């Protein structure tokens, strides 16, 4: 009886609190504070990127730095198709284009392991950037594009919707047998292959799936800017941020990347606008080094460790 009560209370916390927060965020634009709405919009964007990034990199341990490339593709999709098509379709195109791009890239690069994979994916961002710069300057002769802008509320709600879908997909995938297979790849890829997992296919498809959400996020966020060019679309920080935020929050649990992005983004915002703006990157770096050295499983990992110490459990629960 007591155990059952505890379980339901835990379930209420697990599902109830996020739901309440989500509803609060959802009704936020009604109260209309442009500054905070923009703040939350960006937070949602980072949350989507981090959760999407964790779908592949968090479980398999392949640290992808290609996020900016997928995000940039979404932005360009928005710039190219924004005038001709409804917003919803443009977002789908952004996601689909990123999927295809990621699929091709994945097929070529996912035999690389460790740091080589990370370096290649980051090189990809720079390559896309250079190719577009070259194209725009020498062939098109005009740098950048104008983007059809959307209302702040439209952007806000589309992002919120995208974020919810990303969370749901990430959760369902994690609970499915493919989620288990992804973890096994992260643990020991060779063994995974020998128990019957088609490792290459699982890796490529998941990598591409995570790119869909990044591309869609790019397509939405592009409409917040009236003008885009490769400099804006392929910002390397977009590659690093999701990786850092997810690490900061902890990747063993679905809340990790969400909590990590929120805290990280607000710290970033405070630092960039406050009197410390000149030291922003310095502090940013120190926080990151501290995270990796002292709490490698992130904030969520730290909380779980504390919980364990309080309850005196024999071994840490396996997150799932």
């Amino acid at each position, binding site marked *: 009886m007591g155990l059952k009560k505890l379980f339901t209370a835990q379930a209420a916390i697990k599902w109830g609190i996020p739901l309440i927060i989500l509803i609060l965020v959802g009704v936020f634009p009604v109260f209309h504070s442009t500054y905070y709405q923009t703040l939350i919009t960006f937070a949602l964007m980072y949350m989507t990127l981090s959760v999407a990034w964790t779908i592949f990199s968090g479980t398999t341990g392949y640290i992808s730095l290609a996020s900016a490339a997928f995000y940039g593709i979404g932005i360009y999709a928005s710039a190219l198709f924004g005038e001709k098509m409804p917003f919803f379709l443009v977002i789908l195109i952004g996601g689909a284009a990123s999927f295809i791009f990621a699929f091709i890239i994945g097929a070529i690069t996912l035999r690389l392991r460790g740091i080589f994979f990370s370096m290649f994916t980051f090189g990809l961002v720079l390559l896309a950037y250079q190719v577009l710069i070259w194209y725009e300057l020498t062939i098109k002769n005009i740098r950048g594009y104008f983007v059809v802008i959307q209302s702040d509320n439209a952007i806000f709600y589309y992002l919120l919707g995208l974020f919810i879908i990303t969370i749901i997909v990430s959760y369902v995938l994690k609970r499915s047998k493919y989620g288990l297979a992804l973890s096994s790849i992260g643990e020991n890829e060779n063994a995974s292959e020998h128990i019957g997992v088609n490792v290459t296919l699982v890796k490529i498809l998941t990598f591409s799936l995570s790119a869909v959400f990044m591309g869609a996020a790019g397509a939405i966020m592009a409409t917040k800017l009236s003008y885009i060019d490769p400099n804006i679309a392929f910002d390397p920080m977009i590659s690093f941020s999701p990786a850092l935020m997810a690490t900061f929050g902890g990747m063993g649990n679905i809340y990790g990347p969400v909590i990590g992005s929120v805290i990280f983004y607000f710290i970033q915002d405070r630092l960039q606008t406050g009197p410390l703006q000149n030291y922003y990157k310095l502090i940013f770096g120190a926080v990151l080094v501290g995270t990796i050295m002292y709490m490698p499983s992130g904030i969520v990992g730290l909380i779980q460790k504390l919980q364990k110490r309080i309850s005196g459990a024999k*071994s840490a629960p396996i997150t799932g």
Partner: protein
Amino acid sequence: MHLLQGEKVTVAFGGLTAVSEVDFHVDKGEILGLIGPNGAGKTTLFNLISAAIPVKSGKITFKDTNITGKKPYQVTRLGIARTFQTVKIFGNLSVLDNVRLAALFGDPKRPSASQATKDAMELLEFVGLQKDPNSPARDLTLANQKRLEMARALAAKPELLLLDELMAGLNHTEVAEAMDDIRQVRDRGITIIMIEHVMKAIMSICDRIVVLNYGKKIAEGTPQEIANSKTVIEVYLGEECITGS
């Protein structure tokens, strides 16, 4: 028809021929022992059969299907499962998930999630690990990790099981238990090829033994024949032992 047959199987790493023109076969229901000094190419031969590395020349057939050039996961689904010389369990996954994964992906019949869990629990019971199925696999002792690896391999419903030094690092009692496990696996109708350095185990449970040295097959026969073979004793103990006695 043999269950598994290799014809002139060869592989080289750079200038070193690790396995050179080895012919071998195993019949259904048999326990085949694979022995030889360190570096003889035993594990390499396992890697070739399980498709971890591609064969350079020669041919391996399993149930009349040519499996050379296949991917490891395809070979597993065809019915060849293996364990590793150094255990490769998924340490941060639960004991149950380790086995469940193999049931979900390796079993060609593609069982449902609940069926896979049931199969996995049954196998954990078989190897004696049913007590704490939800604890992380890394917490197990070495002997139990090896048992887990065997359960995981069995979850793929193999017809042929490759055991790479199952008994290395185990104490006397554990070796005896492992031997018992192997016999029970055979009684389930699964054919076994095992690499082993524990001679007592090899001699008592194998039906037939193949001896490798420097990548070549130097002897083959029943345990009795191998124990008395001059070449084998030479390889293991050196030439002087025989001439000097």
